[in-house]
């Protein structure tokens, strides 16, 4: 029983690590594409720099929130999954 609980915990932590890594990868690409278009827009038309910057920041916050959802799932896997009490007892806290 303890061995299966421990192996379940190891699987959860591994999944959390890979999950957040893949989410950060996708988020980086998405925000990079957005940033590229914003900088191109400013380069074409420096007067629009204020509006473009505001729109860019709002867009980056939206894309960032997808990565944050993945972070919350990873945190749930590590700290708050249903077996948490059994695991904590196992590891002697």
């Amino acid at each position, binding site marked *: 029983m303890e061995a299966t609980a421990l192996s379940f915990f190891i699987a959860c932590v591994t999944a959390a690590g890979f999950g957040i890594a893949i989410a950060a990868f996708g988020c980086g690409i998405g925000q990079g594409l957005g940033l590229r278009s914003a900088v191109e827009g400013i380069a074409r038309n420096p007067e629009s720099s204020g509006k473009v910057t505001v729109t860019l920041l*709002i867009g980056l*916050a*939206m894309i960032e*929130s997808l990565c*944050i*959802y993945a972070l*919350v799932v990873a*945190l749930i896997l590590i700290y708050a999954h249903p077996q948490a009490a059994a695991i904590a007892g196992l590891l002697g806290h």
Partner: protein
Amino acid sequence: MEHPYLFFVKLFELIGLAHFAHAYPHVIYSWIVMAILIVFGYLAAKAVTLIPSKGQNFFEILISGLEEFAVGVTGEEGRWLFPIVGTVFIYIATCNLIGLVPGFYPPTASLNTTLSCALVVVIYTHVIGIKYHGAKYIKHFLGPVWWMIPIILPIELIGHLARILSLSFRLFGNMMGHELVLGILFFLAGAFFAPLPIMALGIFVALVQAFVFFLLSIMYFTGAMEHAH
């Protein structure tokens, strides 16, 4: 990771409410934010003059800037909605920012606070929709043609529930992530000022997340007020 040291929690321990203080630090710190906002608002509005004093000037710039931005998104008919979204912005920005003071815990780092703000905004969206359109508000959920209703209606309902989830989780995740990174950096290298760049990023994130919540609230209100496609 050691338990963080929170001033007001220690204060409550002194008066004997230790269990309440340890279980609900976000409630205590939201009271602190409320006290700060009420005191500053009262002081700034006490003697409103034509040539503004510093406090009055600060609040005038803040509120007029927010109101012009909000009316720019919703149109002139949305001006009456400004008090609630302005309050949401100022409250969330202050909650996020007091987390940067050592010994304080940001109330928005708990899912309870962010979920409450998100629920207020989304339920108010439906109140506005019913107020503007009456029973015809249901047309917003039914799509353009009648034979697509079985597909479109569940998608729209799930979309509305997802708004609550996304609003609350975005703010909660940003603030909780910031607190976790700070805690880990303190644990790893606290004596070498390692968390300072993260705190600088934290100021930026605090204001941007409050603004994003504000902007999304306005956009949801606008979507409820306009005619269905």
